C-alpha cells in the first residue's frame, strides 16, 4: 500500500488538451473517486497512472517511487476494467493467477493465493470454468480477484460496475466498499455515476473538460459545491437553476427569484449583475413556508415512497447543459415525500427556505459565498 502523488500531470493529443494540469495527493488507503461526464478525462488519468498512456508532462509518485516513466508491469498497480477484460482462453484459476505467474511466483504459492482471493470473492467453485461460462457479476468478481491476488500498491478501477444491471450494481458497490475496508489498499475509482461516487468515496474529484472542478468528501461536495457544474452534477435529480436578479429587501441585499425577493444573508454578490439561483429538488415542500410561490404542475412521477413533480416556470428556469441534468428540460422539479394527491395541471403552493438557495455568479459560474 502507498500514497499516490500526482504532480502537474497533463495530456495532449496534438493540439487537443484532454487533461489540463492535474495535481492531487491521495492518502495511503484512501478510496478516491474520479467522476465526471463522458470525455472529461477521468479514464485518461487512470490510464496514465497505470502506465498505459504516457503523460505529456508532470510526475507521478507511488509512495516514494517516481513511476512516471515506468512500464505498467513495473508500477505494482492493479486495474479493473469496465468490460472486465478477462482472458477468454484461460480458466478462472489461470485468469486470477496470471499476474502472479508473470512475476515468477512458484506454482504452490500461486495456487494458494489464487484460492484465497477466490474465497474472498466467493468464486472458488468456478475456478475451472472459462469466463464465457460465468454471469456478469461472476466475471466482475473474477476481475476483482485478478486485481487483489497480487496485493498491489494501489487499485485502479475504470467504471467497473457500468456493465452490470441496476440491482447487481448496488450489490457489487457494497461488496467493493467492504473489500476496500477489509484490505485497505489505496483505490482510485473512475465512474460517471454520481451515486456510486457519493456512496463509495472517501473523497470525490469532479472533472469537466480535463479540469478539476472540486475535490471534497461526499457531504461537502453535496452541501458546499464550488460552482454551477458541481452543484448540477451532484444530486439526483439534479439541482434546479433559476434566473435571479440582485435587489434589496428592506435595505438588505436580496435576490429576486420567481418574482419573489429573498434575502441572501451574509453572502456577498460583489457586484455580480447576473446571478443564478440553485435549489435542490428535495428542498421544496408543498404548502406555505418561509418562501412560498404558486406553481402549476406539468408532470407527476410517482416512485412509491416519493414523487417527482415538475412545474412550469416559464423563462425563469436556466438551462444548464450537463449530462446529469436531463430533468431540467421538463421544468422545475420538486422531490416530495409527502403522500397526497397532486394532479398534472394543478396550481399548488410550493415553499422553500432561503438558506437552501445556492447563488452562483452567472459569468464565472462560481458559487457566491
Amino acid at each position, binding site marked *: 500500500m502507498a500514497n499516490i502523488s500526482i504532480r502537474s500531470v497533463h495530456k495532449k493529443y496534438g493540439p487537443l488538451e484532454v487533461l489540463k494540469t492535474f495535481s492531487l495527493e491521495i492518502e495511503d488507503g484512501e478510496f478516491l473517486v474520479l467522476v465526471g461526464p463522458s470525455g472529461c478525462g477521468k479514464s485518461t488519468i487512470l490510464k496514465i497512472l497505470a502506465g498505459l498512456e504516457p503523460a505529456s508532462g508532470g510526475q507521478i509518485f507511488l509512495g516514494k517511487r517516481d513511476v512516471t516513466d515506468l512500464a505498467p508491469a513495473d508500477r505494482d498497480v*492493479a486495474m479493473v476494467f469496465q*468490460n472486465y477484460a478477462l*482472458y477468454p482462453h484461460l480458466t478462472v484459476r489461470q485468469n486470477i493467477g*496470471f499476474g502472479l505467474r508473470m512475476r515468477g511466483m512458484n506454482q504452490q504459492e500461486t495456487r494458494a493465493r489464487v484460492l484465497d482471493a477466490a474465497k474472498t470473492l466467493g468464486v472458488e467453485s468456478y475456478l475451472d470454468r472459462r469466463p464465457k*461460462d460465468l454471469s456478469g457479476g461472476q466475471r466482475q468478481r473474477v476481475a476483482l480477484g485478478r486485481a487483489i491476488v497480487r496485493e498491489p500498491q494501489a487499485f485502479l478501477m475504470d467504471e467497473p460496475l457500468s456493465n452490470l444491471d441496476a440491482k447487481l450494481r448496488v450489490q457489487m458497490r457494497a461488496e467493493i466498499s467492504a473489500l476496500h475496508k477489509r484490505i485497505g489498499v489505496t483505490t482510485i475509482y473512475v465512474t460517471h455515476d454520481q451515486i456510486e461516487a457519493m456512496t463509495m468515496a472517501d473523497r470525490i474529484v469532479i472533472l469537466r473538460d480535463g479540469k478539476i472542478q472540486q475535490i471534497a468528501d461526499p457531504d461537502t461536495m453535496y452541501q458546499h459545491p464550488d460552482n454551477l457544474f458541481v452543484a448540477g452534477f451532484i444530486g439526483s435529480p439534479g439541482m434546479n437553476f433559476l434566473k435571479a436578479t440582485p435587489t434589496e429587501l428592506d435595505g438588505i441585499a436580496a435576490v429576486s427569484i420567481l418574482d419573489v425577493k429573498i434575502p441572501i444573508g451574509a453572502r456577498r454578490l460583489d457586484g455580480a449583475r447576473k446571478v443564478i439561483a440553485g435549489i435542490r429538488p428535495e428542498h421544496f415542500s408543498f404548502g406555505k413556508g418561509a418562501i412560498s410561490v404558486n406553481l402549476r404542475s406539468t408532470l407527476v412521477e410517482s416512485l412509491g415512497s416519493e414523487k417527482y413533480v415538475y412545474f412550469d416556470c416559464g423563462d425563469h428556469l436556466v438551462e444548464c447543459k450537463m449530462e446529469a441534468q436531463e430533468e431540467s428540460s421538463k421544468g422545475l422539479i420538486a422531490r416530495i415525500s409527502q403522500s397526497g394527491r397532486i394532479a398534472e395541471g394543478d396550481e399548488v403552493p410550493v415553499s422553500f427556505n432561503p438558506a437552501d438557495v445556492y447563488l452562483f455568479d452567472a459569468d464565472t459560474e462560481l458559487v457566491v459565498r
Partner: protein
Amino acid sequence: MRSVNIPDLLVVSNGSLDHSRTEVLPPTFWPDPPQWKTFAKVWEERPILLWLANSTFAALGSVTLSMFVSVLAGYSLSRFQVRGGNSLGLFILTAKMLPATLLVIPLFSIFRNVGLIGSIWSLVIAHSTLIIPFTTWMLKGYFDTIPKELEHAAMVDGCSPLGAMIRVILPVSAPGLAATSLYAFVLSWADYAYARTFLTNSQDNWTANLGITTMRGEYVTDWNEIAAVSVFVAIPILLIYLFLERYLVGGLTAGAEK
C-alpha cells in the same frame, strides 16, 4: 451447395471410370462398377508423394513466412497510431490488386540473379508476396475486433507489449489465425503459374499442380488418371480443413467482455 459439389463429384467419379468413358456425354457421376485400379496405377507410376511433399513444403513455408510478417504488420496497423499508418496500410493492399502474372517476369529476374530458379524456396517467397498483403488486412480486421483492454490488462499484470500479444492476443485470435493460414495455404497449394515459371527445369522440385499438367499427352490424355491424381492432391486440403475446423468455428473472445 449441390451444384458447387458437382465438379468435385465428377473428378472423383472420373478417377474411377474406364479411360474410354471419360469423354462421353452425358458424364457419368456414379460409375458402375468403379475402376479403383486407376488410383493404384497412378500412385505407382507417378511420383505423387514427391509432388505432394514439394507442394506441402511450398505451402507450409509460405504460410509460416506470411503469417510471421502479417501477424506483426496486422497487429501494428490495428494497434499503433503512427503518422501515415493508414496510407501505409492501403499501400500494402495495392500489392494485392496487381495480377499474379504481372509479377512473374520481375520475380523471375530477381530469382535468377540470386540463384533461386529451380529452388522450391522461390515458390515460398513468390507465394508470400501474394499472400502477405491480403493476410495483413485480414488479420488487422480481426485484431480490430479484440478489445484493447485485454492487452492493457496483460501489461498491468506484468507482460511487455510483445508478451501481451504473444500470451493473450494470439491465443484469443486463433480463429482469425486459422482462417488466414488456411487462405494462405490454399493460395499456395493452388498455384500453377509461378511453379511453371520457376521450377520447369528441376523435376525433383515439381509441385503437384505442375506434375499433373505433365500428364497431358500430345495426342491422347488419360483424363481418368488426371482425375485420380487430382483426388490425391485434394486430400491434404481436406485434412487441413478438418484440423482447423474447431478454430474456424470458435468464437474465442466470448466471455472476455460483458
